[in-house]
């Protein structure tokens, strides 16, 4: 059995509940009459999108995307590809992409390009956690839960070696360095 990592709570369950409610209220206000499509990126974002969409007071469609790394023909690093694509047609729709965490913005940049190629009427980003200091790709974030530093965070969908996703709060692993 794997040894439990030491961690300390950064954002409690109650704090998360309150902040998610605030973001949901803001989105409901901004997207009144627009019937948006909320797209979540699996797997880290699934608790956040589930709680967030239940705070919406407007009708919305929900869909999911997932990405993975495949060996590249020309690169040692591999290539990021979509492993689960959209099922909802977002062309001409107002889209909100929901992320658990944005750091360098490379994943976000990849997904943003993918969604943009479907020609939505608008495309905005909502992330629970954001570390702007690490950002490499310049994409505006419209809705942000919390700004964090370079902590290794787990819980509320986010993992360390696939563990800890189930934690109802967000914690920092203190015995692992990023």
């Amino acid at each position, binding site marked *: 059995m794997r040894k439990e990592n030491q961690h300390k709570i950064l954002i409690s369950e109650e704090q998360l509940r309150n902040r998610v409610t605030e973001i949901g209220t803001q989105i409901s206000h901004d997207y009144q009459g627009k019937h948006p499509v909320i797209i979540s990126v699996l797997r880290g974002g699934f608790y956040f999108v589930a709680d967030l969409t239940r705070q919406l007071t407007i009708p919305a469609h929900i869909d999911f995307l997932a990405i993975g790394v495949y060996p590249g023909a020309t690169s040692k690093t591999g290539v*990021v590809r979509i492993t689960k694509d959209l099922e909802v047609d977002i062309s001409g729709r107002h889209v909100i992409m929901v992320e658990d965490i944005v750091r360098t913005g490379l994943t976000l940049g990849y997904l943003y390009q993918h969604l943009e190629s479907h020609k939505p009427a608008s495309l905005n980003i909502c992330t629970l956690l954001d570390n702007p200091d690490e950002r490499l790709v310049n994409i505006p974030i419209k809705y942000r839960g919390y700004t964090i530093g370079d902590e290794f965070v787990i819980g509320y969908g986010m993992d360390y070696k696939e563990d800890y996703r189930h934690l109802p709060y967000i914690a920092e692993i203190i015995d692992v360095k990023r």
Partner: protein
Amino acid sequence: MLIVTVSREAGSLGDEIAALLSMKLGAALVTRQLAMEQWLPEIANKYELHMLEESPRFYLRPASCGISYAAYLEQRLRSEVLRGPSIIVGLGSQLIFADAPNALHIRVTASDEVRRSRLMQSYCLDSDEAARLMELGDRKHKRYISMLFGKDWSDGSLYHLTLNTGKMDAEEAAEMLVKVVETREIRKQSALTQAVHSSPAAGARKPPAFKHPAEEEFARILDMYSIEWEYEPRTFPVEWDAEGNVTMAFSPDFYLTRFDTYIELTTMDQKYVTRKNKKMRKLRELYPGINIRIVYKNDFYSLLKRFNYGGDTKE
């Protein structure tokens, strides 16, 4: 958004072509007159406006808003092009948007004889007066570009196309440009679709000669995410001597074309970073509209570590 920049010699019909193109494409027309009458009065008094009319060097001075007039103008141009398709006449726009993927840079020219004769007709001048006006106009444009950007205005490599209006009229030139814009738009759409749905955007491209292995590693990471990049596509002059010659310039390592972001990697020890930081500071002062990120040694190695650590793709 589409950007067409028009650089023109005096009497070459560049202004007329830009106006026609703006009408045909339904694009906003941005001219020096608009900048002088609507933008610059927000930060310049009457005397300063007069100096801005007369002296390119004056553009490098700090304005009341805390940045130079040149930087302010660049800022306004960059926000203007986000509002919709734009045709920009002059203002160094061919250099400000030198690497913008949606930009088409046009230069309009004609022989001295043709231009002189047009100026004589337009302003009821005799041949000598028209020649003087022509020479003065060209000199002003040339100095503006040399002073603010350290470039030669007449360098053909700055432009996609040079039109000689001695051989065609303004209407014909504008029609031709509409076709060029349409062709480029279609090709870009098709390239984007291909990039997103098939292989990595830069996969088929011949890699440039990187100056440092770290740059090559970084390019691989960008390729991994199909994020289009260019290697050292632009040099920003950041310091000039009294004669207007560039004494310090900065060429960021990468430009992420789709996200309009420059990235500078620095894997040097901290003691060597000071000069680079100085250049960065100057760049941000002089070109406040530029998005630039500097990746320091520790950040870079931490990024590499994450990518080598069993495929952690969530960034």
